[in-house]
């Protein structure tokens, strides 16, 4: 009972604190308010699970998850290497790289552009994860099949964004390049690719999450005895949910970290864009 009451009181205090903070103009409140909100959720979760004695098979408390997280560090690391560095990252690099190259190749033909954009947009909305069982059949159980699924998943969003980005220059700038007597490749390197960067990065950011999802879901269809998807599906079967949640924590950190890294790169490379200067 004290657990429930305690967490409820914590909740009330946090709400009042957050309302006060958001109205005041203390420096750093942009970080403090969401952090307090996140902490409150963790405290409420812990309090409710302990207070109502929820079975750990259904929902383990955060403290148990963190204990497992630190105790099983070695297993988690092996899974992470298998799923992220071998599967997701290889697929991400191949998929995004080939998408950008093909977009540049297509760029010379307005006819192909007009054809590819609607088709690519359509394919990007399809449940491509469904290709996972086929890829596992073609490329075997190891990380190659996971990388292939990731390639298929990230390819179209990046392609569509790059094609759109390459169209983003206005006639005035292109004419200016013309008056400088710049050839096709010069215009591409100096004007159109830089102008396309915000679009390309938009695609790359969408692709970070897709890559992780693809690599993990593909493991549900067959994998060697390591990997985050493999661990999640087997530990669910063994009802050790604290391990599953520990994998989720890893996935969450990984997902946000990967996204953050690409966003940071974007900030570095498109510092001139209005959305980055704000």
């Amino acid at each position, binding site marked *: 009972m004290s657990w429930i009451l305690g967490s409820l009181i914590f909740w009330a205090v946090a709400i009042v604190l957050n309302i006060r903070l958001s109205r005041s103009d203390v420096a750093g409140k942009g970080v403090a308010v969401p952090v307090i909100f996140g902490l409150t959720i963790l405290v409420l979760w812990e309090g409710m699970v302990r207070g109502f004695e929820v079975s750990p098979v259904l929902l383990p408390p955060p403290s148990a998850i963190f204990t497992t997280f630190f105790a099983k560090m070695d297993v988690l690391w092996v899974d992470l290497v298998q799923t992220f560095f071998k599967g997701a990252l290889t697929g991400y690099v191949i998929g995004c790289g080939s998408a950008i190259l093909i977009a540049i190749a297509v760029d010379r033909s307005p006819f192909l552009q007009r054809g590819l954009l609607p088709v690519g947009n359509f394919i990007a909305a399809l449940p491509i994860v469904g290709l996972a069982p*086929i890829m596992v059949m073609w490329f075997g159980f190891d990380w190659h099949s996971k990388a292939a699924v990731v390639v298929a998943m990230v390819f179209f969003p990046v392609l569509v964004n790059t094609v759109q980005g390459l169209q983003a220059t206005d006639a005035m700038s292109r004419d200016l390049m013309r008056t400088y007597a710049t050839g096709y490749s010069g215009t591409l390197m100096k004007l159109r690719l830089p102008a396309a960067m915000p679009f390309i990065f938009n695609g790359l950011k969408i692709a970070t999450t897709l890559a992780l999802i693809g690599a993990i879901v593909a493991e549900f269809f067959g994998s060697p005895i390591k990997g985050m998807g493999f661990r999640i599906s087997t530990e669910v079967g063994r009802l050790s949910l604290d391990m599953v949640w520990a994998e989720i924590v890893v996935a969450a950190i990984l997902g946000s970290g990967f996204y953050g890294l690409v966003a940071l790169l974007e900030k570095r490379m498109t510092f001139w864009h209005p959305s980055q200067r704000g």
Partner: protein
Amino acid sequence: MKTLFPVAVVVAAIFALWYVFAVVLNAPWAYSKADRAGVELSFSEMVSDTMAQEKPRLPAPHQVGAEIWKTTVEKKITSKRSLIYHGWITLRATLLGFAFGTGLGVLLAVSIVYFRVMDMSVMPWIIASQTVPILAIAPMIVVVLAALQVNDIVAKGVISMYLSFFPVVVGMVKGLRSPDRMLLDQMKTYSSSASQTFWKLRLPSSTPYLFASLKVGVAASLIGAVVAELSLSQNGGLGARLLAGSYYGQTIQIWSALLSAATLAALMVFTMGLLEKVTLKRMGMAQ
């Protein structure tokens, strides 16, 4: 017309590539069959064999088409082999999740626009929530919800909801904030109340944004439902067909389930587009 022809060419090119790949990928099996039978295969015989294998590595488009035709038109809808039966199961979960996702998204967006605390505390977490590969934990959520005796359509719907609420929140926040100072000031000069400003200015001007998000959201929620069915396959659904096909090496079945999911996604996005067109026209906002 200007885009129709190029699109047709690109689609035709995709099918042509598909046939080429089907020949290349299925050729080894055709040759090894011929080898065991002790016959020499000519090129044209090999090609015709790759088009008609029972468990090809990559089925040719017409094989998949025939399978889809067989399992939709020629089977009774109630049959467990009918793709319409499985598609309906997936569609129900998708629509349920989509409806709840949209509702949750709109509610969150309204509270974010009107309450500064919500904006500051919840918005960063909503964005962070999308960098988490949620589909990966679908099996756990599904299993836990099933253990709580929740109807399995609801369990699948929860995954769909999680995937579809995000585009709606982001789009609606943008849309509700889209009226500029001038318009808001004008509402003030009419001495309209906060609720009148909401219903007569903010909500109508957010409609185009809402529809753009709905199109993304409905496709996302189908993906959620299909993946959820991988772990909750006992009651059927397109995801369950995928899984069963992969267990028994029935590639034609996998591809036909995949293509029906794609068709379903296309139909839903198309319906949303139609709704968008009609609504915006009635509201006098069509471009």
